[in-house]
């Protein structure tokens, strides 16, 4: 893993192995999720992968009826909406993610601060072009505990 570039492709590959990996600046210690090749804290390029414990909490969220194709093809629609939100992981950084296990029929019951844990699902991709849209990959999601 130490030689994997700090890219979305590497992150996806690691998700495929059910590993939630972030990057960490070896100079200032800042942990970044999504992973980044240059530290936003100190501009260092001295970066390494670091595994996260998968625990976090909801920072904000929404419930969506008309999603992108990658969600439509999973059966989500106006009658079966899903929750997407921003999760802050225990190690510090925040990431956008689908949030499962929450009451999407009653979004007013979903609370900011709810603890969540990482999980992985497999789906098609995001594009209007079928050659791209039909490529399946493993996605990080979070589940309310």
């Amino acid at each position, binding site marked *: 893993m130490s030689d994997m570039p700090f890219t979305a492709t590497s992150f996806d590959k690691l998700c495929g192995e059910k590993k939630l990996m972030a990057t960490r600046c070896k100079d200032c210690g800042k942990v970044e999720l999504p992973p980044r090749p240059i530290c936003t804290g100190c501009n260092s390029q001295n970066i390494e992968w670091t595994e996260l414990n998968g625990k976090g909490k909801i*920072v904000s969220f*929404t419930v969506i009826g*008309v999603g*992108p*194709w990658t969600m439509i093809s999973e059966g989500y629609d106006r009658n079966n909406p899903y929750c997407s939100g*921003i999760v802050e992981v225990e190690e510090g950084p925040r*990431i*956008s993610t689908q949030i499962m296990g929450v009451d999407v029929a009653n979004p007013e019951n979903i609370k900011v601060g709810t603890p969540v844990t990482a999980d992985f699902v497999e789906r098609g991709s995001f*594009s209007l072009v079928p050659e791209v849209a039909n490529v399946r990959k493993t996605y990080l999601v979070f589940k309310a505990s």
Partner: protein
Amino acid sequence: MSKRKLGRGVAVAGYGMSKFGVLPGLDCRDMFVDAFKDLVNSVDKGLDPKDVEANYVGCCGAWNWEAQAGIAKWCTDWANLVPIPSTTIDNACASASVAIRNGIIGIASGLYDVVLAGGVEKMTTLPTEGTTLVLATGADKTWECYAGYTFPGLYATMATAHMNEYGTTPEDLMAVAIKNHNNGAINPVAQMPNTITQIMEQRQARAREKGKPVPGWVTEMDFLHDDQYNPMVAWPLRLFDCCPITDGAACVLLVAEDIAKNFTDTPIYVTGTGQASGRALHSRDTLTSIPASQIAAKQAYEMAGVGPADIKIAEVHDCFTIAEVMAISDLGFFKPGKDAATAAAEGKTARDGIKPINTSGGLKCKGHPVGASGAGMIGEVFHQMRGEAGARQVPNMDVNLAMTHNVGAHGTTVVVQIYERR
């Protein structure tokens, strides 16, 4: 970084637009030609097209919606302006403002004296799902869209945060829509030229005609709370919190300050311009304001040498109602939180309020052809500053200083510009 000035002054001497709405049969270049013809007619002392030296065109989605890349050169061609340099700019919903800013910079550099700049968008070629997806490509495809995010979803997440942090209510947001519909209702070029009351009455009349149960709404808030007629798009945002899907083009004529009076006796001078970039939503320190708006505004205020209190009116980015709430605090007009959230409900941002905002009806009513919207904003301040806004003209106020604020995507680009009538 010290304060920046442009090397040479720039003025807006003309404005044109196509229809904004669902325009079957018209593609991007057709609509751009309509806007260009309208612009030529708007120039008081006349414009010889041969004097135009460059064309900057914003466009977000022609690559997908129309299978046409590099739209600027085809707009230039159809307007019969070949061989002038033509530049296509994609900064999501701020594309036209970035195009116009680069036109301003082009004149300031000494390279050009007369520049055409604006934008165009053809959004109604795909079903809503396709349009939603094309729009979403303006966000971070890899780290936001893969999480299921759409544009309404991203703004809804900011609305949730605003409600959580400041106690903002859905009704605060609805008041923004009501106010903008009040303005749009008297804007003859608006895509949705109706007040919410008029829309309510139309729906009730239609139900009556069809012999269906007539909805018993009494107030606009009754209508806006009706899950059937104002359905949830991305909780907590409903349909009437969102701008429509729009085809359209708009453009401005930019000229060097020293020759502006050759085109019109009442040019509008660009005295401040600012542009900033922002990260994906999850990578920001705040979800209740748009940092790039604050940075771009600071640049524009410093260049113009004025402050928020000096701005008479502003067209701000209201792709969603929550966007206007954040804009009017990010621009310094209202305090973040309750003050900004309740400004519309309290009439402060109405045409006769202390700080009229979106007198055009905003993107919400005028329409939001994403690549063109920034040019449309300048159209409104151009008309207001010249006293040409008709029924929308703000009362009891000399609109000699105005602002446009155009957000790309969910704040990944913001352009703020300040205009002065001397």
